[in-house]
């Protein structure tokens, strides 16, 4: 792994910031592309871990994942560059849109485009999971955990942070007990 320089981190996250349309989850496929596949600053596992941890701590998920990835590339200054790069494009976009004072969002074409983007986001989420799958769900225990959590999430109004903490504890105790049995 080549050491990342700060300008490059800023540039990549600036690019990601421009493409981050339709909500924070889109950052996952973007990071898979730019950091995991192209630059290899992150592994697929690390990205999944950052996503999980981001659910349980304060702050906007996309921002948290960006800071974790930036930190991985170049410690604290990397995290700072990542978050600054991520928010620069939207900062200017908002200022421009807010000062134009047009009814931009009432425009029929804009609304239709965003109706379509909502569907793109679903497709991106599915593709993201497809790539994470083999690194995450790969044993009898993880299969069972996955399906139980999925059913819980679909049928009960449980918070993601709660789910993440419960899964962490379940896995911890399951493996700890297994370890004792084998010892």
């Amino acid at each position, binding site marked *: 792994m080549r050491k990342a320089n700060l300008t490059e981190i800023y540039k990549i996250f600036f690019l990601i910031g421009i493409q981050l349309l339709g909500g924070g989850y889109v950052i996952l496929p973007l990071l898979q592309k730019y950091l995991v596949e192209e630059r290899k600053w992150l592994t697929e596992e690390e990205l999944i871990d950052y996503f999980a941890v981001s659910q349980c701590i304060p702050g906007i998920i996309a*921002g948290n994942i960006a800071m974790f990835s930036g930190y991985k590339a170049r410690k604290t200054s990397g995290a700072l560059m990542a978050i600054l790069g991520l928010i620069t494009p939207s900062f200017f976009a908002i200022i421009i849109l807010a000062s134009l004072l047009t009814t931009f969002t009432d425009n029929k074409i804009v609304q239709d485009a965003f109706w379509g983007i909502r569907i793109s986001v679903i497709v991106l*989420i599915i593709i993201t999971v497809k790539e994470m799958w083999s690194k995450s769900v790969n044993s009898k225990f993880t299969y069972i955990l996955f399906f139980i959590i999925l059913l819980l999430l679909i049928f009960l109004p449980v918070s993601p942070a709660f789910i993440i903490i419960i899964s962490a504890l379940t896995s911890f105790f399951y493996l700890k007990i297994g370890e004792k049995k084998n010892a």
Partner: protein
Amino acid sequence: MLKLYILLYYEFFKIGIFAIGGGYATLPFLYFIQSQYNWFSLEELTNMIAVSNVTPGPIGINMATYTGYTTAGISGSIITTTAIITAPFIIAITIMKLINKFKSCKEVNYIFNGLRPASCALLISIGLKLLYQTITYTEEDWSMSVQFDYHAIFLFIILILPFSFMKKRPLLVILAGALGGIILN
């Protein structure tokens, strides 16, 4: 003016600490700020949410920028944007330092072994919920029956088939979806 800046920083710093989850977690806080300070009207708030949704970038941060701008111009927007990321930044750095320190510890790996399937389940459930919302609508007559939106189903299939076999191109998926939306409606 200085008092307004301090209040803005304080309120958005709080959002940064307490809004756990996606960008929409900031909404209840913005409604609270609206009712508390009257820096902007309810109608302006609705407009901010709409614009934040169609602007690139994390929605929660966009709303902070927009609110700051509406309340106190460019300097206001710099204050709110900085304020909302201050606490998460400190927390993220601390967590990464801890993870790095205990990375080689096998107990940490036991924990992540459970977090990964949970992340997959979380994403799939979000995808399914969004899919259900997008491909169905409720009839607005007495029957209130749930109908399928065939345009949405069609676009979903058109997008998922080629892109699940292709090299990863998130922007292309977004643009294709936007174009599909314009053509189909």
